[in-house]
């Protein structure tokens, strides 16, 4: 019986979560009918199954209307199509030798350094050096600042795409459209931008022109009422297009991500 119990243990889990069919299912059900431990196990797992079936995620609705999602995907697809041929081959061609060189330097540097300048043993009583050097720490901070900037730009791009993607009408007679969510999101992003520049202005210096243009565009969106005239949105979209802001955001995000 104990052997059977062990043999059927995993099958009871699969049975409780509806993953057994046919003969395997019948055999496991039959066994659970005659084995008190397996029956109790099955009941316990069925109760768990019920709890998990009540997970609100099962009925969750996306927070972004379909037209906006379509616009985002189309923007990404257009960008992918516009990318010059051989882009990846070029990156690979440059990237692989560069990576090999970095690995080689990392492997050889300690040996070369120890030949050129022998390192004296630390005097007794002197504390161990810190695990992370100041240089490594500064590099880490720079990377963090650049990652934050990349994320911020990517989120800002999403907001601008959302506004450009024919928002839903809120007042048909007056030709007004709903930009409430995008406007609120712009205000959040502007708050994030302030923190971004405080945390690492040097690290994101190269992104400054794009960050400034994005800030201007976000301010325009943030200043919109939630139910705004369609022509105001079109004017904003024309500005974004004229400045090629979405393309510049995408390129700068990639550069920041390294």
């Amino acid at each position, binding site marked *: 019986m104990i052997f059977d119990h062990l043999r059927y*243990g*995993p099958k009871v*889990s*699969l049975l*409780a*979560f*509806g*993953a057994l*069919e046919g003969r395997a299912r019948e055999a496991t059900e039959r066994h659970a009918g005659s084995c008190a431990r397996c029956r109790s196990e099955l009941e*316990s*797992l069925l109760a*768990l199954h*019920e*709890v*998990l*079936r*009540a*997970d*609100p*995620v*099962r*009925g*969750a*609705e*996306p*927070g*972004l209307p*379909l037209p906006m*999602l*379509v616009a*985002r*995907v*189309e923007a*990404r*697809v257009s960008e*992918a199509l516009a990318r010059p041929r051989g882009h990846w081959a070029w990156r690979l061609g440059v990237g692989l030798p560069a990576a090999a060189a970095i690995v080689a330097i990392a492997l050889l540097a300690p040996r070369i350094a120890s030949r050129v300048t022998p390192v004296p043993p630390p005097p007794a009583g002197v504390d161990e050096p810190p695990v992370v050097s100041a240089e490594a720490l500064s590099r*880490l901070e720079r*990377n*963090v600042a650049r*990652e*934050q900037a990349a994320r911020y730009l990517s*989120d800002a791009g999403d907001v601008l795409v959302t506004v450009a993607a024919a928002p839903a009408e809120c007042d048909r007679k007056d030709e007004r459209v709903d930009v409430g969510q995008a406007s*609120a999101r712009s*205000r*959040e992003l502007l*708050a*994030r931008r302030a*923190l971004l520049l405080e945390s690492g202005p040097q690290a994101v210096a190269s992104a400054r022109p794009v960050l400034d243009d994005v800030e201007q565009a976000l301010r325009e969106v943030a200043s919109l009422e939630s139910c705004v005239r369609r022509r105001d949105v079109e004017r904003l979209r024309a500005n974004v297009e004229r400045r090629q802001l979405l393309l510049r955001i995408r390129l700068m995000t990639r550069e920041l991500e390294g």
Partner: protein
Amino acid sequence: MQSPAEPGSDLDLLHRLAAGDREALTPLMERHYRRLYRLALSYLRNPDDALDAVQETFVKTFQNAARWDGTSEAGPWLSRITINVAIDRYRRDKRRQATFTPLAEGDHDETIAGGEPSPERRTFGSELAGRIASALRVLPEKQRAVFVLRHYEEMSLEEIAESLGMSLGTVKSSLHRAVHRLRERLQGVRA
């Protein structure tokens, strides 16, 4: 490429995408985006990340439509892309968190904005959802994917094995382990 499938069907839309017809994206998204969103959300447990994953899924669908075998069902193919995008995203975020201190605990956007959470976030923030999210978080990423594909997507074990590139035996043992870990974590929780 001439589509042999019924016009407007999933198969027809995928054939059209494979031939570079971008117009086919919208009806395909319309049909599947809710289901894929829930799948991504059940794995990532974050509405923004789930939306990004769905977006990424459709971009990949367009880019890889030519690699689709032309006969298999579109639904499972899209689910497979979504779960793999979600796993990649989860790994990336884990790596990021290892070297990156977030602006604030939890959802930094919401913290900074200080505004009312959306209805979607309120649903997601329910106590039960929170308990389930923390329980799922302790599962290794593939085990979690197996569980999600079975419980939320109701895929067969064979389909899961194919989607995740695992053997059938590994899928069975992963599901068994996942279920037992979840039971430990959700002890005392009632539906």
